[in-house]
């Protein structure tokens, strides 16, 4: 009975996922695609032609934008991965998985936009670092005329992406390390005369990498198509393709929408090309690595590499901390001129009137995040439970389904999706935004929850069944309580993902839905860093609070039930 029951449940879940997740993406891509080939009646374009592509090719700076996207996307992903692999080696055996995960939480919780806004201020020629060193060390009375933020090579964008992606990779690696025999591999390697660092690179990394491949592609796709961070840190003239495209979509001349749609397709192609490039790179690295391994060298280069990685990691962590701290300082500053290290006058003015400013944005952000997370969580639990009941493992195509929204570039389908939504009479606004967020929240919740769900000791569930508990009681009375910590963690991750969403809010909210993220990005192009500071601080604080809650709640619940903590 249970198996049939499970199959039915599984069918329902699949139906919801197909209708709620896959359909909008496909529809969005279809609509964007039609516009890319000249069909968008709204602007009077009804013929099918290659004109949008010709118009796109004629847009100034296009090829530099494409090259910039590839360089910053692939570069930041490769550097982040390399650094994270090295840092995982440094941390391995020194810090427990649990403590590492807790240390990573603030960096993971802080949305890209908040990090970018803070980082831009910290590293700018007139930024905090320069102010701390001026004029006593540098002699600067006015900031030097060097391009750091918005530099034409995209280096500060790469740095910003690394600040966010290295912790993400570390977290993914942490979970991958649990699946392979790290300690035994290292011990075997060292007994053969290899240093710990060399053994890490030669023995552990090749085993870890296949386990984190999908997340690597997610990051690669994200880095190629990121808009908010690229607007805040990336080159401006021309910007990366994703930013240029967003500008064209929103440009005054409505005719630019057609080439922008073509650009959206170009970006999808770029992501596919980058993944292909990456796969080729993998093969090359694997071939070279095999030669390197066969030579049997017991050198010490890798040890020094790990020390260097530790230093770079520490610098990144310090930058991230300074970035977030600078937001807080600015939010309570009144005047803070160059080259003063600290504000010359302080004011709580920016915080004082929540009703006229950040209050509604906090409510909107929290509401959107909570609803999108709850929906995603319910669907994820239903999916996992249906797998259990049907007694089926996860098919590869199902895994691919989960990753679909994370690998297809957002912007390629969001504009089309907003048109399609209007077409079927669903108005833009809060519900559409919640749905749009759920597209990206669900995969993360699912990924975060799957592993712990499957790691659940099956004997617990079997014992409950043996005691006569039916499937629903087993779910409610055994699985959910036992898994409360991973469920809350998954919820916190989902909430953080929602808070950070920029494009879906912009495109599906018709501008009516103002979250902390959209407001912070808009304000960042204004003149009042103090107000921007308030929004960015709140934007980082909200997900952080969610993580904290996920950490503290299970312990509190256990205490209430009278169970000792240890």
């Amino acid at each position, binding site marked *: 009975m249970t198996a049939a029951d499970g199959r039915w449940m599984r069918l329902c879940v699949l139906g919801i996922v197909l209708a709620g997740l896959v359909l909008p993406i496909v529809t969005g891509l279809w609509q964007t695609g039609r516009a890319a080939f000249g069909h*968008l*009646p*709204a*602007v*009077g374009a009804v013929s099918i032609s290659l004109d949008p592509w010709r118009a796109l090719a004629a847009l*100034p*700076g296009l090829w*530099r934008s494409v090259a910039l996207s590839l360089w910053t996307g692939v570069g930041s992903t490769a550097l982040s991965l390399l650094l994270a692999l090295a840092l995982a080696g440094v941390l391995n055996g020194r810090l427990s998985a649990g403590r590492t995960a807790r240390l990573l939480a603030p960096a993971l919780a802080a949305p890209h936009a908040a990090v970018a806004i803070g980082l831009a201020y910290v590293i*700018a*020629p*007139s930024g905090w670092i320069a102010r701390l060193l001026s004029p006593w060390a540098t002699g600067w009375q*006015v*900031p030097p*005329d*060097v*391009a750091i933020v*918005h*530099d*034409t090579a995209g280096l500060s964008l790469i740095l910003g992406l690394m600040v966010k992606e290295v912790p993400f990779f570390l977290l993914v690696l942490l979970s991958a390390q649990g699946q392979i025999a790290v300690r035994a591999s290292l011990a075997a390697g060292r007994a053969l005369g290899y240093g710990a660092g060399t053994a890490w690179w030669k023995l552990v990394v090749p085993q870890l990498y296949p386990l984190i491949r999908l997340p690597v592609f997610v990051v690669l796709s994200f880095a190629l198509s990121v808009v908010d961070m690229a607007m805040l840190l990336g*080159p*401006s*003239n*021309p910007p990366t393709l994703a930013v240029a495209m967003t*500008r064209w*979509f*929103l*440009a*005054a*001349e*409505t005719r630019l*929408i057609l080439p922008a749609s073509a650009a959206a397709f170009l970006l999808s192609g770029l992501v596919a090309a980058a993944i292909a490039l990456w796969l080729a790179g993998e093969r090359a690295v694997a071939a070279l690595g095999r030669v390197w391994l066969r030579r049997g060298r017991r050198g010490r280069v890798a040890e020094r590499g790990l020390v260097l990685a530790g230093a770079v990691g520490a610098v990144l962590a310090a930058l991230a901390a300074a970035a977030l701290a600078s937001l807080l300082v600015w939010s309570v500053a*009144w*005047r803070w*001129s*160059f080259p003063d290290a600290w504000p010359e*006058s302080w*004011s709580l003015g920016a915080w004082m009137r929540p009703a*006229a400013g950040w209050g509604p944005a906090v409510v909107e952000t929290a509401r959107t995040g909570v609803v999108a997370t709850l929906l995603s969580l319910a669907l994820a639990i239903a999916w996992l439970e249906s797998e259990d009941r049907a007694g089926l493992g996860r098919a590869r195509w199902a895994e691919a389904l989960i990753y679909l929204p994370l690998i297809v570039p957002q912007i390629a389908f969001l504009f089309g999706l*907003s*048109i399609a939504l*209007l*077409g079927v009479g669903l*108005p*833009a*606004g809060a519900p559409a935004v919640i749905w749009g967020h759920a597209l990206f929240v669900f995969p993360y919740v699912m990924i975060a929850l799957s592993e712990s769900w499957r790691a659940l000791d099956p004997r617990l569930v079997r014992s409950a069944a043996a005691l006569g508990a039916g499937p629903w009681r087993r779910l409610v009375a055994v699985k959910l309580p036992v898994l409360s910590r991973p469920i809350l963690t998954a919820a916190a991750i989902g909430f953080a993902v929602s808070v950070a969403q920029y494009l879906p809010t*912009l495109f599906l909210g*018709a*501008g*009516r839905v*103002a979250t902390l993220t959209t*407001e912070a*990005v*808009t*304000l960042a*192009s*204004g*003149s*009042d*860093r103090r*107000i921007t500071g308030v929004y960015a601080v709140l934007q980082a604080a909200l997900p952080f609070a969610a993580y904290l809650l996920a950490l503290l709640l299970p312990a509190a619940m256990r205490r209430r039930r009278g169970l000792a903590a240890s």
Partner: protein
Amino acid sequence: MRLSLVALIALGLASPALGETWEETLAAARGQTVYWNAWGGDKRTNDFIAWASGALEAQYGVAIRQVKLSDTAEAVTRVVAEKAAGQTEGGAVDLIWINGANFQSMKEAGLLYGPFLQELPNARYLDLSEGSAATVDFTIPTEGYESPWRLARFVLTYDGARVETPPRSMAALGDWAAAHPGRFTHPTAANFMGATFLKQALIELAPDPSVLQSPASDAGYEAAVAPLWAWYDALRPNLWHGGEGFPENESVLQQMLNDGEVDFAMAFDPAAAAAAVERGLLPDTVRSYAPDAGSIGNISFVAIPFNAAHREGAMVVANFLLDPAVQAHAQDITVLGSYSVLDPTKLDAAQQAAFAALPSSPALPSNADLGRTLAEPHPSWMTRIVEDWTRRSTE
């Protein structure tokens, strides 16, 4: 002060002689929430809109929800998407703060409601004679599809503590930049302010500025812009970051002036600097001025999309913005500092006194500092010089 203001508003609102249709409009508007799509990068403007919402709610039962745009084109795109989807009523955008190219684009595509300006009772305070500033938006006749709400003038702002004698013309600016490399820049021409800077230079440098009032023709274009690009090619290497990167908009530029990264900012609002000093966003040593030959000026408008869900409410908002008391409040440097769009000769003594009583500030330019108002070139000029600039700067 506040009391008298409320009294003034009440006075303005209580004016009789409202036509029957306006009464109906007011009745229909009651209870509506108007989604006003307005650029959200300026806190003073946002605060002013919030204030207006409160006053309107009290008087008319109409609330404003400001949809803060980072670019006005976002609202245009939204209306386009709605039209694409066949949504002819209940649209998400009720009112747009709009100008120039965006207005032209929407008007030509039939995306605007109107004409409605004549239906607004407070339109009587405007100078609506043929060709007057309130009837033309970037040389495009507004034909009642837009209602004015604030006056803009191009000004340069500098820090008097660092710059003693600012250049008084675009030609002189080139020399100043050569003497102080890296200390001047302008917003990217993709931004309205950056384009305005180029237009100001175009008017000053063009051999015959009068051709700029007609659409740019291929024949006259090259001759008219040649001096501009010659001047700019010489200027660009001396700009901030060697002219390789540009700030996104005038707010970012103002922040850069505050940070000391550059010595000049620019605004399309003579009171912007004074208001920024007031709010601690610029040092109190900044001063604003217009070039000796005068500067570009125009009026900002609001327009209503053809499918606005709360059209009546939007009209009430547009009318409210033209109220003499509201215009005086907006011109208050501590509030918005935006110059009035009304015709002073159409105001009575009490209304004029409200303007005379407004506070002043050293960062606020006098009328003499501002000089002559230069007319905006036809939008086709802006489109073409922006295209040229983009091509030249990304090569």
